[in-house]
């Protein structure tokens, strides 16, 4: 294997030899290399296959715009597909693989697609895979999916840690080339807080690859001085390996910092982020993102060995890599001549410079043969370029043998961040490119993105931009200058636009990554898709992972040329974040695994765990769902036992997850009266009341109890699911609807451990730990007040309320005391046979009692639908939902309403969600009578029971119906009944 490594290279360290593999082959490079530079140094021009035609492709650029050299790097959970070889730093042990080729990059079966080229043009998929429709799912889609896509994501979890951060600064400088460095120096010296971010490994941009001295000093020495000063300024924060990928509203910028992606496995610190997602808030911004060199569209322009002229210069000067042994350049501008000079200085033969301009008028004094007024029309070579065909201005063709071709079609300012907030770039004939929008509020473009060229001009412009930004901040600044550099009069290079070489023979590519050729764009035009946004989608030009960084302007140019208008008239497609792809890891940050969302644990979680609870996730909460005992193998065994124990003895259940809201204020009673549909004005101190809250549209929102604990002090409980929603709703009512009321709200859900003690022996159990008299006379049903516990050592809040239908209490104690109080209740209840019970038993007992939850309160029911129509106050002037609750459709007597349901034959079962039909009627929407909202096995009754919302249900108790389960295809005969299956007279409650 020939080495292309030559002398020099400002970025590499030749003492630091690094071994890596490429498609299994062991190769070496140096510290400071990218994967791309080390592959080129090893003579690997062919690195991948193209997306559609599987054509051999090489490395085109030396930066973020790379469309071809996408590799899969790493293995297992650290495998990153579609990594640009030009951005990936080489580390010892790195594993890189080509993509989109099978069985390998050198012999690829899919390359047969190349022979089908004429068939696979723009719109091919739209036209071919249209019919028959039945073929879509079985034939076409799997076929397209197999052919499409680039690298494959790993199925293994990424072991790396990722994080998200905010940063704030006075001035954000995006890009650290000459312009950005000058801006950062200028602002840094003025004392404001500066962040300078650059996607590269080193600051410097164009200075890194500059082969010529700057102001009489070597460019790398000049750069070192600047970086040294920036490091010394404590108000300047330097962010390397950091891509600012988006400009959001209010001067917030998204950036991703690659913290440890460049390290070998053994050197990765597991406690440091692999990547860090930044949101940077900047008062002012200097945009110094530079310009992207454009390819030229000519036959065979995608052959490995064809490279951007500027990239050649970077590989030469920064990495000490020769692009070839005999190189030609094809350029329509003068900057590319610098590449020719630098190549010649390193002893590389420049065979020819092909310049379409008839009078290039440049001061090039090198040895290369200059062919003016000519174009490259084709290239030859199988997996690498062997020769080019030049069409002279007299129409004559000449074949020149080369092993590399540098191309430069002009420069496209990298305007993305100036356009993310909706600005449209402006075409400039002078620069032959789209410039940043004129009004970039708070953002000052400078350097190459503003159309400047050359180190001196860009540096000077950066200083000026910073002075302007500082003035906006009210700070005086003086533009930094490069020592020894005389500011010359600004000259604009005369660039001759070449959008498409007309004499092209072979396939001429516009978008390398999506394999869009010039002929595809003209085809799109012929078929009527000549608007830039339509042409993009019809041809997929610019829709690949590189988002058309090297292709969009050429596509616009070709459209313009064919329509005979200026590219400015065609305009660009919309610029949207992200500038370059951002890893899912960075976007996810720390939110993965158990950190995907917060975990809420009740203050009694530990107690429940010690008692053997099985937990269930309900929203963020982990609730105890049942407590298996020895010998119980099936959840129903435990639940049946728990229900029977509570109904005959006593049980304890954690109800801490219910929402709890403290309500204070002179108008608290009036406030409650307005948010509940039932009356609350006269709730006495020491009493709890069940309340129903409506939405303003008249439907039930939530239910719960509210207790009056003092004159201006109330305590509300909500359902677990709507704890946050109810608080937000109450805040809206208090702050927006009735700000004149004196009422204050505070969430207390997490402050209290609350447990239900239910069952006929519950009073006896609680009497052992509560000091106060809690006899039925002293503490009747719905009593609610503070009680003394454990001989005055603790105060708790006791409520005589019951969800189970048994004699029951709820006791609330400060959260930290929860576990010891629950332990004390268990100890006190031991002699009565107490059992802990969970949400499953809670659910069974409430169904047995006909109590509703959000299975019934489903957003479409009124209080009347739930059998609580009489609770809705007819006396109150106003409450939330009063007016809309009286609407015609909401008071229709035929509305589905709450009813109990049981199977006619006690051994039959039925499922929640089953629909109710009248016997003998067809299954149809018109015949639908309602549906089962909840069901369970009732251990008390010994058969299945359920609740249902059925048309006119309350008047149909005893009626026989059909319970139809469409999913299982079964029907069961059921009987409608009173929803209170157990103790309908409420005798147990009041015992």
């Amino acid at each position, binding site marked *: 294997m020939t080495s292309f490594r030559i002398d020099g290279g400002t970025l590499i360290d030749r003492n630091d030899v690094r071994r890596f593999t490429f498609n299994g082959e062991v190769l070496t490079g140096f510290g400071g290399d990218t994967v791309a530079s080390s592959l080129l140094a090893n003579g690997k021009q062919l690195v991948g296959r193209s997306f559609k035609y599987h054509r051999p492709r090489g490395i085109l650029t030396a930066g973020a715009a790379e469309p071809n050299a996408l590799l899969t790097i790493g293995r297992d959970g650290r495998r990153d597909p579609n990594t640009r070889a030009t951005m990936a730093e080489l580390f010892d042990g790195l594993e890189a693989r080509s993509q989109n080729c099978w069985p390998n990059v050198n012999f690829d079966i899919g390359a047969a697609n190349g022979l089908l080229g004429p068939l696979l043009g723009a719109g091919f998929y739209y036209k071919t895979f249209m019919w028959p429709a039945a073929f879509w799912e079985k034939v076409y889609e799997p076929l397209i999916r197999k052919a499409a896509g680039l690298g494959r994501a790993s199925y293994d979890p990424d072991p790396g840690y990722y994080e998200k951060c905010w940063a704030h600064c006075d001035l954000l400088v995006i890009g650290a080339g000459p312009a950005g460095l000058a801006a950062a120096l200028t602002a840094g010296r003025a004392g404001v807080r500066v962040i300078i971010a650059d996607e590269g490994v080193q600051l410097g941009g164009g200075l890194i690859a500059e082969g010529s001295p700057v102001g009489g000093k070597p460019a790398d020495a000049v750069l070192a001085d600047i970086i040294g000063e920036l490091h010394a300024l404590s108000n300047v924060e330097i962010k390397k390996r950091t891509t600012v990928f988006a400009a959001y509203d*209010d001067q*917030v910028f998204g950036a991703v910092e690659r913290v440890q992606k460049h390290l070998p496995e053994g050197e990765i610190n597991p406690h440091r982020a692999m990547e860090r997602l930044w949101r940077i*808030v900047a008062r002012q911004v200097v945009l110094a993102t530079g310009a992207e060199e454009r390819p030229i569209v000519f036959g065979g322009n995608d052959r490995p060995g064809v490279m951007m002229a500027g990239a050649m210069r970077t590989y030469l000067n920064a990495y000490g890599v020769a692009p070839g042994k005999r190189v030609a350049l094809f350029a329509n501008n003068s900057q590319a001549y610098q590449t020719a000079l630098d190549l010649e200085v390193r002893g590389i033969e420049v065979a020819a410079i092909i310049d379409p301009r008839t009078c290039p008028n440049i001061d090039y004094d090198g040895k290369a043969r200059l062919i003016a007024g000519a174009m490259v029309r084709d290239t030859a070579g199988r997996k690498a370029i062997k020769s080019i065909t030049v069409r002279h201005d007299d129409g004559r063709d000449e074949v020149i043998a080369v092993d590399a071709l540098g191309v430069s079609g002009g420069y496209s300012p990298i305007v993305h961040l100036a356009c993310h907030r909706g600005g449209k770039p402006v075409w400039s004939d002078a620069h032959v490119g789209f410039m940043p929008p004129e009004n970039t509020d708070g953002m000052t473009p400078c350097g190459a993105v503003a159309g400047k060229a050359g180190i001196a001009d860009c540096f000077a412009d950066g200083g000026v931009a910073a002075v302007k930004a500082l003035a906006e901040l009210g700070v005086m600044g003086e533009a930094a200058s490069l020592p020894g550099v005389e500011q010359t009069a600004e000259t604009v290079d005369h660039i001759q636009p070449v959008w498409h070489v007309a004499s092209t023979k072979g396939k001429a590519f516009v978008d390398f990554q999506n394999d869009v050729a010039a002929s595809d764009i003209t085809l799109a035009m012929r078929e009527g898709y000549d608007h830039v946004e339509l042409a993009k989608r019809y041809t997929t030009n610019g829709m690949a992972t590189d988002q058309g960084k090297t292709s969009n302007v050429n596509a616009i140019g070709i459209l313009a040329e064919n329509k005979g208008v200026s590219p400015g008239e065609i305009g660009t497609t919309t610029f949207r974040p992200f500038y370059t792809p951002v890893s899912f890891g960075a976007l996810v940050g720390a939110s993965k695994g158990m950190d995907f969302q917060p975990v809420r644990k009740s203050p009694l979680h530990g107690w429940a765990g010690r008692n053997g609870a099985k937990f269930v996730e309900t929203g963020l909460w982990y609730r105890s769902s049942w407590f298996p005992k020895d010998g119980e193998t099936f959840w129903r065994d435990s639940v049946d036992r728990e229900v029977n124990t509570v109904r005959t003895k006593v049980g304890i259940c954690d109800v801490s997850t219910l929402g709890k809201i403290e309500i204070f204020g002179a108008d608290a009673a009036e406030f409650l009266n307005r948010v509940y549909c039932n009356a609350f004005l006269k709730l006495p101190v020491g009493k709890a009341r069940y309340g129903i809250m409506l939405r303003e549209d008249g439907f039930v929102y939530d239910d719960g109890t509210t207790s009056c604990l003092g004159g201006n002090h109330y305590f509300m409980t909500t359902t677990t699911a709507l704890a946050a929603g109810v608080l*937000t709703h109450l805040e*809206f009512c208090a*702050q927006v609807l009735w700000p004149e009321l004196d009422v204050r709200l505070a969430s207390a859900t997490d402050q209290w451990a609350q447990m239900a003690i239910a069952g006929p022996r519950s009073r006896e159990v609680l009497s052992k730990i509560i000091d106060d008299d809690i006899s039925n006379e002293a503490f009747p049903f719905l009593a609610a007040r503070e009680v003394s516990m454990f001989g005055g050592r603790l105060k708790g809040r006791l409520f005589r309320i019951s969800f189970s239908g048994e004699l029951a209490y709820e006791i609330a104690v400060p959260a930290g005391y929860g576990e010891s109080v629950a332990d004390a209740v268990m100890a006190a209840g031991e002699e009565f046979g107490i059992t802990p019970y969970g949400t499953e038993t809670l659910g069974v007992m409430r169904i047995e009692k006909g109590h509703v939850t959000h299975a019934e309160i489903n957003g479409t029911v009124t209080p009347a639908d739930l059998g609580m129509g009489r609770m809705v106050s007819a006396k109150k002037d*106003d409450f939330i939902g009063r*007016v809309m609750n009286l609407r015609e459709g909401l008071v229709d007597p035929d509305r589905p309403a709450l009813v109990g349901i049981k199977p006619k034959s006690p051994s039959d079962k039925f499922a929640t969600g089953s629909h109710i039909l009248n016997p003998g009627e067809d299954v149809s929407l018109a015949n639908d009578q309602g549906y089962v909202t909840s069901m369970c096995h009732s251990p008390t009754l010994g058969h299945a029971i359920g609740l249902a919302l059925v048309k006119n249900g309350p008047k149909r108790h005893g009626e026989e119906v059909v319970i139809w389960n469409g999913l299982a295809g079964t029907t069961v005969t059921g009987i409608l009944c009173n929803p209170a299956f157990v103790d309908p007279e409420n005798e147990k409650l009041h015992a």
Partner: protein
Amino acid sequence: MSSLVKCPHCGLRPREEFTIRGEVATPRPDAGADEALWFDHVYLRDNPRGEHREYWHHSGGCRRWLVLTRNTLTHETSDVVDASTLKLGERA
């Protein structure tokens, strides 16, 4: 849409701390008001191109309801006030 919101109580805070309820509807009618007023209040919302007033709740901050005036076209936020001022005026 705004990335940062200037809460009158907490200062400049990230959008993620806020919950948006939607357009500031017509004022809540009196209980005895015409049904049409109630329908308008409960159901009818505009979706303007341009200036738009919305309820934003500083749910991850001071928990006050705010009225935010923003331009749906330019994304410019021109005003943020405590929502109680709708009814109380400057007394709030």
